[in-house]
C-alpha cells in the first residue's frame, strides 16, 4: 500500500502531470488529485470513451482486449489504463 502511495506521489510530481483520477467500474471516482467538477467530468466522459474503445477492440477479435488508451490532444495527453474493476487516468502536458 505504501508503495502504491509512493508511486502515485511520484507520478504526480512528474513534469507536466496535471492530474490523476482513479475511477471504479461504474464511473464513480474513488481517488483524484483534481478538483471536483473536473474529476466528475473527466470520469464520465472518459468512461464512455473507454467503453467504446474496448467494444471496438473486442468486436474485431473477441479474444483481444484493451490494455491501454492514449488520447493525444493539442493541449495535453490523457492516458488511461483500463481494467476490469477500475480505470487509471492520468492527464499530462509534456511540453510544460
Amino acid at each position, binding site marked *: *500500500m505504501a*508503495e*502504491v502511495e509512493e*508511486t*502515485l506521489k*511520484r*507520478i504526480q510530481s*512528474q*513534469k*507536466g*502531470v496535471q492530474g490523476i483520477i*482513479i475511477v*471504479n*467500474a*461504474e*464511473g*464513480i*471516482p*474513488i*481517488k*483524484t488529485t483534481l478538483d*471536483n*467538477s473536473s474529476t*466528475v*467530468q473527466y*470520469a*464520465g*466522459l472518459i*468512461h*464512455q470513451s473507454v*467503453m*467504446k474503445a*474496448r*467494444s471496438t477492440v*473486442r*468486436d*474485431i477479435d*473477441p*479474444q483481444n482486449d484493451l490494455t*491501454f488508451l*492514449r488520447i493525444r490532444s*493539442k*493541449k495535453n*495527453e490523457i*492516458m488511461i*489504463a483500463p*481494467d*476490469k*474493476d*477500475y480505470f*487509471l487516468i*492520468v492527464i*499530462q502536458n*509534456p*511540453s510544460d
Partner: protein
Amino acid sequence: MSIPTAKLKKPTLKVTPSSRAMNISTSGILRLNRSATYARSINASVSRKSFCLAADSKILEKSSVQTPKHTIQVLDENGKDVTPRPVYQPDPAAVQSKHSKIFASDTSGGTMSDFYSTTYQTTTNASFAGAFTRSLFGSGSVSIGSQSIMESMSEEIEDPSSKRDNSISLSDVQVKREEVKELIQEEMLDDMVDLYLVESDTLCLLDMPAISVSVDSMEAESVKERNSRYTELCKNRTGNDKYMGRSMQTFNGASKTKEVQSEAITMADAATIANNWDMYDSFCSAGQGEVDLSTDTDKASIAEMIHQNHGPTRTMERTMSVISSSTIVSSSSSRMEMEPFVVPSESKPDPELILQSEEFQQHLFVMERIILENIYQPKLAAYRQLPTLEDPDSMPKAVPMVVSRREESSLDEEGPPTPALERLWSFSCELTTGRNVSSMAWNKRNPDLLAVGYGQFAFKDQKPGLVCCWSLKNPSWPERIFTCQSGVTALDFSASSASMLAVGMHDGTIATYNVQSREKTPVIDSSDCVHKHTSPVWQVRWINHERALSGEDKGEALISVSADGRISKWFLRKGLDCIDLMKLKRTRNDRFKRQVGEKERKSEALISRQAPGLCFDFHPTDSNIYLAGTEEGHIHKCSCSYNEQFLETYQAHKGPLYRITWSPFCSDVFLSCSSDWTIQLWRQDLFTPVLGFMSTQRAVYDVMWSPKWATVFGAVNEGRMEIWDLGASILDPTIVNPASPGVKLTSLLFATETDCVLVGDSDGQVSVYQLKNFTAGEGTQVGTLEDIIGSTLASQL
C-alpha cells in the same frame, strides 16, 4: 359454453348416493334437447321432469358423485323420490356395431349438439346422457376432441372405475369390439365376408306436430271444431265475468354497479445490444445468459460493456450507463461524492481493494513509465539514435535565429563539426543524492538495465551503501533498491545468469543479489565465510573459464580483489539452494621488495605485508591470464595456473592503480590509470608503457576503452571527463567535459550499443552523455592503433 349458474329458486334437491348418478353439468344442453323431445313414455316424462329439476340444482355439479357403484337418489324437499330413471336399458346381448362407429369416428370436429345427436341416434347408453358421456369418457377410447367437449362440460371426470353398470356393459361391448378388431389379420382380408343388413327399430327423436292440418285428414273435423270453440271463447272473453285480466309486474333486479380497479401494471423497457464479444463472452462462460436482441433504447449511443453475462450485473451496467449519461446532463450533488460507491454486489470490489491489487500496481508502474517516456522522449530517442521528432503542438521556445545558425553550421562543408558531448539526462533520485557513485555495470542481457553502486572511497565518512538498478525507461526512480550495510565499491552482473548481481563492499563482504525478485536481501552473502576479505573489495568480476583445470572450474566464477592483498575466486556450487561459498583461495602476494628486485610469494597466512590490490582485468580471449594492479603502482601479469608466481610485472606508475583494462580489439594492448595523473598505454610484451597520457594534475579514477573504436577511450579524473581519440591526437583529449563545481567525477561507463557515455559523480548522479559529431573513422581502427603504437615505438628507438 356457458352453463347458467345455479339458480336455487326451485326446491333444493338432496342427492343421496343411492340414486343414480347423473352428470348435471351437461344438463344445460340436455335440457334443450330434452325440451324438444316429444316424450312418449311416462317414464321419459318423469325422467324429464326430474331431470330438469335436477338441472336446476347445480350444486350437485361439484358433488357429482365420486362414489362408484352407488346409486344416487334425488329427493325432493318433500321427500319424494324424484330420481330420474334411466331412459335406456341397454341390451347387453345386442351387438352394437354402431358403437364402433361412434367411438371410432373422430368427434373432435363435431359440435356438442352433433355429438349428442349421434348419441341419441344410437340410444346406446342414455341412462342419462350424463352418465353416458362420463362413461364414454371414462372408457378412454374416445379421441381427444371429446376430451375438449368433456372439459367444457365438467371439471371433473370420474374415474373409469366409477362407471355405472351400463357403462360396464358398454365397456364390455367395447372390449368385444376391440377383440374383434384384433382378430382381423392380413389373411382375413381376402376372406369372403357376409354382411347382413337388417332394419332396426325406428327411433323417434324429434316429433314436431304440424300446426296446420289438411282438410282431408281425419282429424280435420275435430280440429275445426276445436278452432271454432276457441274463437267463440275468445269472443266471450271480453266483458265476461269469468275472465278477469290481471297484470303482473316482474321485479327488476336492483342493479348495482361494481367496479374493480387493479393496479397499473408497471412496464419497464429492457434492451441490450449484443456485440460480437458479448456473444463470445457468454459462450466462454458456459453459456449462462441469453442474448436479448431487442430494439435499442434511446441510449443506444452508449455501448454497454458487460463483464459477466448474468442478469443482475447486466442491469447494473445499464444503470451505470444511465448514471454516466445523467452525470453529463446534470451534475447532481450526489455524484460529487468522493466516497466509494457501495454497490450491493459481490462483483464490485472495494476501492481499497482496488488500490491494493496487483494489477493496479502494475498499471501504475506502466503509467509512470509512459509519463516519463513522454517527458524524456527526445532524450531517449537521441540515446537510441532515433531521429527526434518535434512536437507539432508545442510552442516553439527557441528563437528561430539560433536554429538557423545551427543549421548553417551543420551544413557547413568547410570544417568538420567539433565533437561534443550532449548531456541527455541523469539517473538520480532523492535516495542517491549525496552518495558517491563508486561503480556502474550494465546488465549483460538487457542493455537497458544499469546497476549503480554507491559507496564512499575514503575510509572515513562511511555510510551504508546502496545499489540501485536503473532502467532506461525510468530515469527518475530506480527499479530496484538494495541497501547494504557498508559502502558499495564494486559491482558486476553475471553473464550466465543475467539477473545475478555481485556486489563488493567496503568491509570486505561480497554479496550476490537477484535483481529479478523484489526481495531486498542478497541471495548469498560472504559474511559468514571464514576466508572472506577483511578489507574493501575493490573489484569483482564474473569470469567464464572455458578451459577447465578441473571439473569444478568450468563455468562462471566470481573473482574479487581486495585490499587485503588477495584475489579470490568465489565458487558457487551448482546446487540449487545450497550455495557453497568455497573460495578457492589463490593468494597473490603482491609484496615487492624494491631492493631485492625479487618477487616473493606468500602462502596462506595473511601477513600485513601484502600489497593491497585495487584492480584486475582478465584477458579478453585467454581467461587464464589476468593483470592485477596494486596500490604500489605495479601491474602484475598472472595466470590462473600458477598461484605462486607472477608471470610479469610492469612498473611505471608512481601511485596506486585505479584501473587496468585490456583493449577489446587489440589483444595485447592495455591501459592503466592511476592517481599519479597519468594514463599509460602498454603492450604486454614491453615492460615500459608505449604511450602515456596526462592532461591535468588530477588523479584519474577511471578509464575505459570505447566498445566501438580501438583508438578511443574515455577517462575520468576528479575535475573532468575526457574522451581521447588516439587517431586524432595522442597529446590531448578530443572531448573534454568539465564537471559541475564541487562535484567529483568518479566513474565512467560506455554504453555498448550507442554512442553514449555514462559518468558517475560524487553527488549520486549518473549522467548520460551522447557523443555528438564524433567518429574515429570507419571500422574499428585496429590498424590505426597498431600503427600508432608502431610509430611511437619506432620513434622511441
